[in-house]
């Protein structure tokens, strides 16, 4: 029974391959270029994916934002077209009634005059419940904190500032513990938001807003009707049932059909993020295909060189066949040679790509949001595996067809003549 002899194939490869330097260099360079293109495109795709996914989570992840609207269906004798607007106390009710909830938060917004010393400006003030900070990703900078249940319960005049508004009001002064005025009422700064990249927003950017306890807001401005509700389930897939439950609770309280889709305008970020992620994966696949096609051109170069090699070694192959070489001892070394060219080129391409990415990583992008959003090209394990697989496949294919040509050589024709 015949047993494969990889050692013999390796021996034949080592004794038969003769490197023509210029030709080998050009071939290896074309593979290196293709690999560089593939890796950079995939790395940019990955960087974009990471930064966009970070940015789309800037607002907080897996949440739904609801805007009160009007009913569109009649319900238990009540006509359609009634406005429905939940109140502050409904937040506690919803928190109690809806299972699988990280938290639900209410929001009321209003433009007001903000004063500190010589600075007077009109800003958006939002009264929020204490869970807002966690679910809406308001991370306090070191030393500060977000609003807590006690602030809400005691209607404290404390404020959590967006990082831009903090700079606008306080300049270079550390705002923590400082006072300022909202509509002539003094507030103490208890926290400033860490800067964040945020793609999705409603009612303006978080960095430009001042958050105060919703109870304080009601006390000062007299408004207790919620402008928004924000809900976050424990798991993204629980979103549907949580929203359904929310409508059941509020529907029975305010008298509307829980199936009425018009009562709340809903922005379900679980859904939108899914779309974004699919789109980004699509972009990455597209970039990968372009890169792989570039690499295929390199592979064609390798196949070309291997065809030339087979042609040059026709006689040598015929001699080996006459000496009793089996088919795979002829094809094996040729496939191996094509693969070696490809892998050397691939390794060179990887080194270049790593160098390019290293350099790009050190170029400051500053405040340019477009550049920040484009992200830093990032090499990941999956990119490495994909590239290695593509390279290996191209290398083997590039060697396989010339090797098949070699195996079809008729020794009788090559041996008798000079």
């Amino acid at each position, binding site marked *: 029974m*015949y047993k494969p*002899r990889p050692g*013999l194939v390796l*021996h034949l490869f080592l*004794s*038969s391959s*003769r490197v023509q330097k210029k030709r080998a260099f050009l071939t290896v360079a074309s593979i290196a270029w293709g690999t560089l293109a593939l890796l950079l495109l995939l790395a940019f795709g990955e960087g974009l994916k990471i930064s966009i996914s970070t940015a789309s989570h800037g607002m907080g992840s897996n949440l739904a934002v609801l805007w009160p609207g009007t009913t569109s269906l009649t319900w238990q004798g009540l006509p359609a077209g009634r406005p429905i607007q939940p109140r502050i106390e409904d937040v506690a009710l919803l928190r109690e009634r809806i299972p699988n909830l990280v938290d639900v938060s209410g929001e009321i917004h209003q433009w007001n005059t903000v004063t500190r010393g010589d600075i007077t400006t009109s800003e958006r003030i939002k009264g929020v419940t204490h869970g807002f900070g966690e679910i809406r990703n308001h991370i306090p900078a070191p030393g500060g904190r977000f609003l807590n249940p006690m602030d809400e319960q005691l209607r404290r005049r404390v404020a959590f500032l967006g990082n831009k508004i903090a700079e606008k009001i306080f300049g270079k002064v550390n705002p923590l513990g400082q006072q300022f005025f909202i509509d002539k009422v003094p507030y103490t700064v208890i926290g400033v938001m860490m800067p964040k990249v945020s793609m999705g927003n409603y009612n303006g950017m978080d960095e430009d807003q001042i958050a105060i306890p919703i109870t304080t807001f009601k006390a000062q401005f007299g408004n207790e009707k919620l402008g928004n509700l924000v809900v976050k389930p424990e798991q993204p897939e629980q979103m549907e049932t949580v929203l359904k439950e929310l409508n059941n609770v509020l529907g029975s309280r305010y008298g509307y059909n829980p199936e009425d889709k018009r009562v709340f305008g809903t922005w379900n970020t679980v859904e939108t993020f899914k779309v974004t992620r699919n789109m980004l994966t699509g972009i990455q696949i597209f970039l990968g295909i372009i890169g792989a096609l570039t690499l295929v051109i390199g592979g064609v170069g390798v196949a070309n060189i291997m065809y030339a090699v087979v042609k040059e070694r026709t*006689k*040598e192959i*015929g*001699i*080996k*066949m*006459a*000496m*009793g*070489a*089996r*088919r795979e*001892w002829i094809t094996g070394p040729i496939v191996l040679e094509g693969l070696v060219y490809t892998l050397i080129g691939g390794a060179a391409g990887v080194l270049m790509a790593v160098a390019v990415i290293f350099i790009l990583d050190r170029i400051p992008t500053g405040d340019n949001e477009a550049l920040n959003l484009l992200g830093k090209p990032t090499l990941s394990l999956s990119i490495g595996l994909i590239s290695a697989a593509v390279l290996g496949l191209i290398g083997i294919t590039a060697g396989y067809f010339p090797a098949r040509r070699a195996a079809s050589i*008729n*020794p*009788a024709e090559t*041996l*008798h*003549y*000079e």
Partner: protein
Amino acid sequence: MTLKKLKYTNTDNTGREKEEVILIKDLTKSYDTGKVKVEALKGINLKINNGEMVAITGPSGSGKSTLMNLIGCLDTATSGSYQLRQEEVSVLNREKLAEIRNRRIGFIFQSFNLLPQITSYENVEMPLLFGGVAKRKRRERVHELLERVGLADRMEHKPTELSGGQMQRVAIARALAMEPDIILADEPTGNLDTSSGGDIMNLFHELWEQGHTVLVITHDPALARRTPRQVEIRDGLVTMDSEK
């Protein structure tokens, strides 16, 4: 030489029992070039016993090279039968034929056909490598063979550093490596000067005297006359066999 006497005994020239090495019956080979069909061999019948030395002669285009390709298992016949030591070869697949070329046939070509980039040693080693012979055995065998053809001091030389006669000796050593049933030489002196050619023919005679079966394909009548048996081929048929 006692050629005539040998011819009528039941033993070969070394006293071994005569045995058929090659038995060819009605062998034909035709090439279809698309437009024309060329019948290179039209029905060859040939029997060669072990220990024989035979010259196959004929003008160019007579079909002798085609016959050599078939005997050497480099090609397969269109019809007819070819038995190599009682084994029907015409039905074997590629890999089996490769094995037969490796173990049973030693080729010697007009243009030597040594691999130029490797040494004499490595050239002779090649069939042993294909035959799966262990490294130490290979070394012993290559040394023995190159000594036998008088090139013990040229082992590490590449073919380009050797004369034509020396290259052909390396090729002969290579042909003998696997102790084949037949040595198949195609115009072995065609590329050599008279003196080297004579040396090579003497070497073939020595091999024959040691009991090897030697087939020499040649168009040179002078060379053919130096072999005990001549078979002439013309137009794809055996037209003369000195044995008959």
